[in-house]
């Protein structure tokens, strides 16, 4: 679609994720909904080969691939009347683990349950000018989802050892994915995603995160550092209170920069010399505004965040099925046209 405007070049993304200034602003997304891919390509995008073709056609320099494992055990479905979406929701009350007995009975995923076949296939198929991002996450999220947020909140204080053991069990399995991905030469970036904040602040006290969450993030950061590859961390919400912790874990790039939570100008000014920034273009605007507004918004980000490097352009979360495809394509087109140097 946009191939004539720019050729993929993984080095462009690599330099940017290390907070450098590349020949042009690269594009990045954590996820692009299959319905949007289908609409753009005129056919479903299912296989690794089709996904590479899709990403190339939109001038992304990478393919993001996840290991596969079923961790979404405590989820329920909602029928969305406005658009028939089969969206799953984390349970905030139902608790699958609430005491030591239920902990012992819980069928925790195991390292051997992880399926790396899609990553291995991607390693064989990826063209030389693109790179593979190995992505997974949700140690913190899986713990609270499995316990239900209210039970998790209570047990943090009433049964702290049980909560600590949950982090150890879940953390061990998810960390093992990053250990495996770090051993794959063709994986050129590690990306860990786990929401720890709301738009009004952190979900739990920073000391709790320091005890149970950041040690895992640091271990993953150490893997990336040992390989000398970029390390992206994704969390929604306001992260200022733990930015130093995030940086101490070896994170080289932060995603997704929700504008309702953190202002891009402030982020760039306070942390732009220490960490690369990814995303930021408001999903709400991508869903509701017109293409002129999106063009102007993207220009604003290019000017504020991209001019001196250290910014990869993308949405403030992911390309959801409910945003306007024309807006998504306008954002990309604006970056390709005006984000070169």
């Amino acid at each position, binding site marked *: 679609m946009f191939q004539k405007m720019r050729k993929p070049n993984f080095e462009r993304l690599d330099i940017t994720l290390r907070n450098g200034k590349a020949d042009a602003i690269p594009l990045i997304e954590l996820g692009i909904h299959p319905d949007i891919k289908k609409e753009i390509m005129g056919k479903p995008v299912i296989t690794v080969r089709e996904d590479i073709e899709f990403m190339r056609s939109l001038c992304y320099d990478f393919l993001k691939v996840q290991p596969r494992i079923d961790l979404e055990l405590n989820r329920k479905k909602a029928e969305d009347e*406005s658009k028939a979406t089969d969206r799953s929701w984390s349970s905030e009350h139902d608790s699958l683990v609430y005491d030591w007995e239920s902990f012992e009975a819980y069928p925790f995923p195991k390292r051997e349950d992880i399926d790396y076949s899609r990553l291995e296939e991607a390693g064989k198929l990826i063209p030389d000018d693109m790179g593979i991002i190995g992505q997974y996450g949700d140690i913190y999220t899986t713990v609270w989802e499995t316990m239900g947020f209210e039970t998790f909140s*209570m047990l943090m*204080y009433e049964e702290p050892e049980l909560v600590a053991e949950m982090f150890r069990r879940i953390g061990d399995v998810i960390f093992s994915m990053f250990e495996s991905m770090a051993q794959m030469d063709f994986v050129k970036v590690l990306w860990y995603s786990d929401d720890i904040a709301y738009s009004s602040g*952190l979900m739990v006290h920073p000391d709790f995160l320091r005890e149970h969450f950041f040690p895992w993030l640091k271990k993953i950061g150490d893997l990336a550092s040992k390989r000398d590859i970029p390390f992206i961390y994704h969390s929604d919400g306001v992260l200022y209170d733990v930015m130093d912790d995030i940086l101490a874990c070896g994170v080289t790039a932060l995603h997704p920069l929700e504008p*309702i939570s953190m202002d891009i100008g402030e982020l760039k000014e306070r942390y732009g010399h220490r960490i690369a920034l990814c995303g930021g273009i408001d999903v*709400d605007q991508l869903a509701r505004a017109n293409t002129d507004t999106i063009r102007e918004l993207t220009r604003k980000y290019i000017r504020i965040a991209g001019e001196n490097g250290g910014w990869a352009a993308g949405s403030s979360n992911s390309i959801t099925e409910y945003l306007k495809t024309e807006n998504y394509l306008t954002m990309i087109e604006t970056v390709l046209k005006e984000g070169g140097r």
Partner: protein
Amino acid sequence: MDLLKQIEYLVVRGHIDATSRYPKDLEGEPGVQEKVSDALNSGFTPQDILMKGLICGMGIVGEKYEKNEIFVPEMLFSAKAMKRGLNQIRPMLVGDVSVHVGTVILGTVQGDMHDIGKNLVGMMLEGAGFDVIDLGINTPVSKFVDTARQYPEAVLGMSALLTVTMKNMKTVIDTLRSSGLKNRVMIGGAPVTQAFADEIGAEGYSLNANQAVSLAKQLLSA
């Protein structure tokens, strides 16, 4: 410290009763439940216990939450402590209009199963003396409208997590107005902004649970 101040302090600390393990430094000490009993036995009125103990405590909790001095788990303990005390005095307050601040109907809109935020708003409103009618998650438009019809003086609060589901807030407001209902509406949730509230005709927008309390008061007095 007098008993009402002790109740306020224990709500702020989230210490429910003598068996509660939270917070650690108060483990084994009397909690809100015991202190409310003491206050009743000492002749304090349920109205004073509510207004000068429990509600004052939750007011401080809201301020601390807004300043990021405490977080959702600590706030949940405080809300549970407050509710324990409230349940003790509630039978004595039935029919007492002097402690009725107002009624708020709350719900997460159709298609949306997210409710931590809504529940926090509910807890803070109850903590401020409001009667809260919680319609739950994935609430159909008709349920909002029927309940609003039943409580014409109530403020109606809606929550949504996603851009795609927050559109349903407008449907609720349009249906309310076309049905001739005048309930004031406040909205909140991750993607919601003041601009969106203005756009769909909601009378109020709140960024967090604490602000929702002052907003509800403001809408009731307007």
